């Protein structure tokens, strides 16, 4: 019996059950905090027709950009896609359906999805193209847009440390969308830098409780830097 032991040994096991036309969430902001090994393995699997929910679309040859190059994504829900030329080409040619979503609304859609809230009102996007076709309402003199929450078949995220029961700790700004996505996947797979035994993480310092996590795999990360900026000496 595996009980609450959630560590898997291979990327095949980590992504078992991922099929064509599924919806996936992929953590990260730019290239920071992305589940590199899980993305690379999806390229190998060749799963097609995916709806991908992720703040960005990677760059041409790294991160989600690899899935785009391989034409595995049919719909992309993101807030900013400016760093990826493949993305732009596929979007302009109509190969790729793109739903641009304000970053805070995207984060809240995922948070709400994981928390069982079907929709919420937000002032973000009122009077802009984002509100087209959506219900609006005036509450206490302000205008709001009704935004529906998001869930996914698979949430693929990255954390710093996990214990074998799936309690997670994130590191610095590599947390970003990962904690909410952990809650919004039917199957949540986390790729981590380090796996420890239960009890080694201080319960007061756990960011994501293990109840949200289904599978854990230890990854190795390139951690590519998108904009390398350093102080002049």
């Amino acid at each position, binding site marked *: 019996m595996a009980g609450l032991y959630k560590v898997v040994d291979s990327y095949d096991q980590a992504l078992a059950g991922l099929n064509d036309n599924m919806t996936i969430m992929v953590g990260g902001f730019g290239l920071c905090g992305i589940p590199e090994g899980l993305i690379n393995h999806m390229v190998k699997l060749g799963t097609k027709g995916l709806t991908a929910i992720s703040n960005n679309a990677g760059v041409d040859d790294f991160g989600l950009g690899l899935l785009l190059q391989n034409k595995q994504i049919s719909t992309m829900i993101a807030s900013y896609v400016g760093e990826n030329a493949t993305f732009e080409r596929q979007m302009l040619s109509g190969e790729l359906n793109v739903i641009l979503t304000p970053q805070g609304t995207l984060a809240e859609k995922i948070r709400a999805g994981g928390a069982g809230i079907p929709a919420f009102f937000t002032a973000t996007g009122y009077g802009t193209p984002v509100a087209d076709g959506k219900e609006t309402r005036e509450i206490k003199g302000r205008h709001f847009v009704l935004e529906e929450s998001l869930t996914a078949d698979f949430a693929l995220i990255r954390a710093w440390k996990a214990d074998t029961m799936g309690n997670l700790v994130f590191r610095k700004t590599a947390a970003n969308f*990962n904690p909410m996505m952990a809650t919004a996947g039917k199957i949540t797979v986390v790729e981590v830098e380090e796996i420890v035994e239960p009890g080694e993480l201080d319960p007061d310092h756990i960011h994501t409780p293990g109840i949200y996590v289904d599978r854990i795999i230890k990854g190795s990360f390139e951690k590519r830097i998108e904009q390398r900026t350093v102080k002049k000496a």
Partner: protein
Amino acid sequence: MALSREQLAQRVAKELKDGYYVNLGIGIPTLVANYIPEGMQVMLQSENGLLGMGEFPTEETIDPDLINAGKQTVTAVKGASFFSSAESFAMIRGGHVDLTVLGAFEVDVEGSIASWMIPGKLVKGMGGAMDLVAGADNIIVTMMHADKYGNSKLLPKCELPLTGFGCIKRVLTDLAFIEIKDGAFHLLERAPGVSVEEIVSKTAGKLIVPEHVPEMQF
């Protein structure tokens, strides 16, 4: 003389107050961080999940897990905190950030702003801009007063798709500092050496000009 990028940042920095939490957008707003007055404590929020953004790292301290909203490697100051994107936008949408500074293509007399999309050109996405303008009460927009052909970017009504509707109250351009209220632009200050006439000629939306318009101080 029209203000340089550095002067725009310097003028915005004069609006900072001790103890402020501030979100600075990409471009000119980022430069404001270089002009925080000595002795003043200001915490910079970066919407990817950092409160207390510091300067760029050295080659020795660079960390791929620590970036700002522009995806640049940065450092964290003493007293900084890290959090999720949902938490970050709770701060922004919930009105907890004291001052937000961001750029724009156009603003209009109703306080609407267009900054994310030019139809027919590349669409890169709005990122966090729509949340920032909808959530903050105290926003300064930094922008060019007119394009290179002299066409005004301060309009009766924005022509480009909006980032936010009726949410902007203050605009700093390379020519003037302007308040938006009661359906009009109100000229508060002019850039050193820039005439009121030039500002009037480059402002397409209704502009209220008081009898005396002081020059900006830095």
